[in-house]
């Protein structure tokens, strides 16, 4: 069965290594912070200028001057640091953030990603997404494998305006974990109970399937 949002987040969190600095996008990526495995510590970077983002505040702790990149009220952990936005993106663009997790509309077999603009709809902007995909060492894209009409989001070539080129190497969807390399999606894991056939059917771009595809443990 397709994974729930929480299950996708859980699978994402299994990618983290102890000591990773991680930037989590809005939506499913943010949920990953709730599922960091036992014995692993990660530190969250928020691109408005906070390293060591903590939990949401209690009513007493709410402070208009302390927000995250999603403009939500937050707290900071002991040992956090706060800096300006140029410094924050120096960290991101300089490759100091170990992991970025973000959503997308489409990813293609060349690791191109489209995530910010649908022509004809009002364009609100890319925020920090273009910087993140161009800068982070490892990027994981989380999204549903297909849209609500059943159209694949894993394409031979992105159709929407791009956020970045040749930058995505790993995708975690509600159906599968895939690596992107050599012009193809390489299936690595499938969601429990999801068949390789369903994944094939919902992957429009070239898919390489190994002999054995293990089930994710979520």
């Amino acid at each position, binding site marked *: 069965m397709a994974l729930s949002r929480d299950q996708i987040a859980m699978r994402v969190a299994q990618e983290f290594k102890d000591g990773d600095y991680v930037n989590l996008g809005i939506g499913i990526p943010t949920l990953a912070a709730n599922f960091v495995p036992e014995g692993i510590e990660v530190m969250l970077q928020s691109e408005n200028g906070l390293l060591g983002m903590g939990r*949401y505040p209690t009513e007493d702790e709410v402070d208009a001057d302390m927000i995250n990149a999603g403009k939500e009220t937050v707290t900071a952990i002991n040992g956090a640091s706060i800096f300006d936005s140029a410094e924050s993106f120096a960290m991101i663009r300089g490759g100091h953030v170990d992991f970025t997790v973000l959503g997308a509309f489409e990813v293609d077999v060349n690791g191109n990603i489209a995530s910010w603009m649908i022509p004809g709809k009002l364009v609100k902007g890319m925020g920090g997404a273009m910087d993140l995909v161009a800068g982070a060492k490892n990027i994981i894209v989380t999204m549903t494998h297909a849209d609500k009409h059943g159209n694949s989001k894993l394409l031979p070539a992105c159709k929407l305006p791009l956020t970045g080129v040749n930058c995505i190497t790993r995708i975690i969807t509600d159906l599968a974990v895939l690596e992107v390399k050599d012009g193809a999606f390489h299936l690595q894991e499938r969601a429990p109970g999801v068949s390789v056939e369903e994944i094939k059917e919902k992957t429009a771009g070239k898919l390489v399937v190994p002999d054995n595809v293990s089930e994710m443990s979520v």
Partner: protein
Amino acid sequence: MSGFDKVVTSYAEAMKGLSDNMTIIAGGFGLCGIPEGLINQIKSMGTTGLTVVSNNCGVDGFGLGVLLEDKQIRKMISSYVGENALFEKQLLANELEVELTPQGTLAEKMRAGGAGIPGFYTATGYGTPVGEGKDVKHFDGRPYILEPSITGDFAIVKAYKADRFGNCIYRHTARNFNPMAATAGKITVVEVEEIVEPGELDPAHIHTPGIYVDRIIKGTFEKRIERKVLAKEER
């Protein structure tokens, strides 16, 4: 050191010299760390044809959003806009131009502008609509685009404390774009919560040295919260 006392006592004095068609660089991220009183002063002055460089454009009726009400803004240079209905309306009616710029590129363009660096290369935006028409250069085999820097006729900044010489510190994440904005204005005006005497701020921990600052005014702030989210046990 009277020559270095930058405190002004009225908003009119703080924004003196602002005129139509100027470029204003504004600090702030969403509604966090915005110079509320300076924005309201611009509204009351009725200056029009403005180009405003700011990560966002406030919300309906608050922050930079108030400058939309009388169509004072001709162009926004931002990374994320449209949190307000009026913005969307003016954009769709072609009454407002928007130059969308990646957040990190925007921050770096302001810093570069203030630092006398007219342009820099970045991987951000290469191969996307942002990179269209821009110079491309390869370094170590990877393509980068040339981004020109930004300066403004005015910079409007919100700080926590400033001394009379203009040395500023910011509070928590209200820092955001403010320090870069402060460097990039021909005239930089800082609205602060508290003015202190020189020597009261630790020289090693000044966020914006006074050399960048032309005028300081003490403001009062509503500090509206855009998205109040509480810890689970509090919901």
